[in-house]
């Protein structure tokens, strides 16, 4: 049974990745599992300069899910290159860097800088609901999606994955725009926009009031979008949104995903992504699936 996959010419030993922002740069969860077992580590969003992020509270729990308003706190691309790439390169796993920006220019600068270093793919985050400029503003307008993709693509040495926001009326429109812009693949979904209220303090739980909603609660929306996008464009998809188990991952693959990313599940179980790897393998063994291509987009 072979669970290898290829995205934009890059081969991954298995389809399981870590969702950006939920896994740091791998160091912390590396204490809980063997990072060599992962298809790829997708690191948290990196910007051209350090970003402070949003005030606390940044986390709220919801039924079967959670909200976050981290706001892309990150030490900037130089610190990332210095500290995290050497750490990750010790392991036999692919590195995907999620890139953040406030303007098209900033995205391009990060992409250009990363072109000089040893990482495997770039993931363009135009869908973060937690930052005012950049982020989701780019991700909900097809014209902007195409434009930012096209520009960043010019500066990218590595294949460019565009990460889409689910907070739109028609996700296929955004997917087609990214395709027109020259994306080499798509990641979906980023977080939904959600809110929780502390009725005793009579305030939103999050300091920023609203935040990004993730976890198994959102899986039905994510699956539906992967399914729709897979029918609409010809790009490989990294599917995510609520994956907790190997079975969940198989659902995404059947909906059309090539890769799958595990995010919030880590907070419930530090070894979640490895258990997804094992679960996929077990499904393949039990049902005689020799290659994931046999079931990809089968529904």
């Amino acid at each position, binding site marked *: 049974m072979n669970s290898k996959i290829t995205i934009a010419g890059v081969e991954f030993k298995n389809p399981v990745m870590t969702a950006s922002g939920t896994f740091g740069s791998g160091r912390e969860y590396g204490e809980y599992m063997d990072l060599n077992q992962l298809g790829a580590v997708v690191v948290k969003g990196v910007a051209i300069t350090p970003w402070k992020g949003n005030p606390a509270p940044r*986390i709220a729990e919801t039924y079967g899910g959670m909200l976050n308003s981290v706001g892309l706190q990150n030490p900037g691309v130089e610190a990332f290159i210095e500290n995290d790439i050497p750490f990750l390169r010790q392991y036999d796993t692919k590195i995907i860097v999620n890139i953040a920006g406030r303007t098209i220019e900033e995205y391009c600068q990060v992409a250009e800088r990363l072109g000089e270093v040893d990482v495997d793919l770039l993931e363009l985050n135009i869908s973060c609901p937690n930052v005012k400029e950049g982020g989701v503003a780019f991700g909900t307008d097809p014209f902007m999606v195409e434009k930012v993709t096209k520009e960043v693509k010019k500066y990218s040495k590595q294949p460019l994955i565009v990460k889409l926001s689910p907070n739109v009326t028609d996700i296929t429109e955004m997917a087609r725009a990214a395709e027109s812009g020259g994306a080499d693949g798509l990641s979906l979904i980023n977080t939904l926009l959600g809110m929780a209220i502390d009725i005793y303090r009579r305030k939103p*739980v999050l300091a920023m009031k609203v935040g990004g909603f993730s976890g198994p609660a959102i899986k039905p929306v994510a699956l539906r979008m992967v399914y729709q996008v897979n029918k609409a464009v010809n790009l490989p998809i990294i599917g995510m949104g609520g994956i907790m188990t190997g079975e969940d991952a198989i659902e995404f693959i059947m909906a059309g995903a090539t890769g799958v990313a595990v995010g919030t599940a880590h907070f*419930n179980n*530090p070894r979640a992504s490895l258990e997804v790897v094992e679960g996929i393998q077990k499904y393949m063994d039990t049902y005689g699936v020799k290659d994931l291509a046999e079931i990809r987009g089968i529904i």
Partner: protein
Amino acid sequence: MCLTKEQWKNKKRVEILKNIEIAQNVYKMDLQVGEMVKKIQPGQFINLYCNQGQRLLPRPISICQVDEKREILTIVYGVVGKGTREFAQYQSQDKVDIIGPLGNGYDELKKEQHSILIGGGLGVPPLVELAKRLSGNVEVYLGFRSDPFLVDTFKQYTNQVYVATDDGSYGYKGTVLDLLNQKKHVKEQAMIYSCGPKPMLKNIVKWAKEKQYPIQVSLEERMACGVGACVGCVCKIQNVETGEWEYRRVCKDGPVFNGREVVWDE
């Protein structure tokens, strides 16, 4: 750098030995945790996961006390929300998932030094193991709204245990700070160890600064991962010289910080 299989930490399912209410809505839970007891530093915490699947995030709970011989870890928690309400229903022999110990605990000073431990409400429990391990002159100041707990436990480790309650139902009537101010503290070197609600900590830090005591505070923030990966649980930490601040992770860079470096403005 790469760890071997034996070195990986993991979520662990442990048995509850006891789970009893020790004050109104405050519970004490004993967990049979195995070897983990050996690695514990006072001020560290564990992540306690709910058994109910709709609650995904672990609850960070400080380590109150450990019994190394019997491999028992004790926590004391208040029922304040859905997760802790679930915990309160657990019975002995039920099982729960935990990871830990997590975070950086208090820097304990060498012997014969003078220590002042100041706890408020649910900030009291993490000071127990500390009081147990400290030697030298150990003063303990505890503040509660009304119904105190763990007072007798502290008395096993020092005879200087002073209690304040807001309503005067036990000990001194007033805040723990009022109580502190009542006593004369003239020792030149004393380390302050503190844990409690933010407004209290803020005031204690001010007091300690005036007295020129070094102070360690244990902070709380809403967490997701508890291990430093999500950058969800931040507090503002300032470089005292430059005045510049940045968000640091309570779970990984703390929960114990140098009180002088914490920015309290929000």
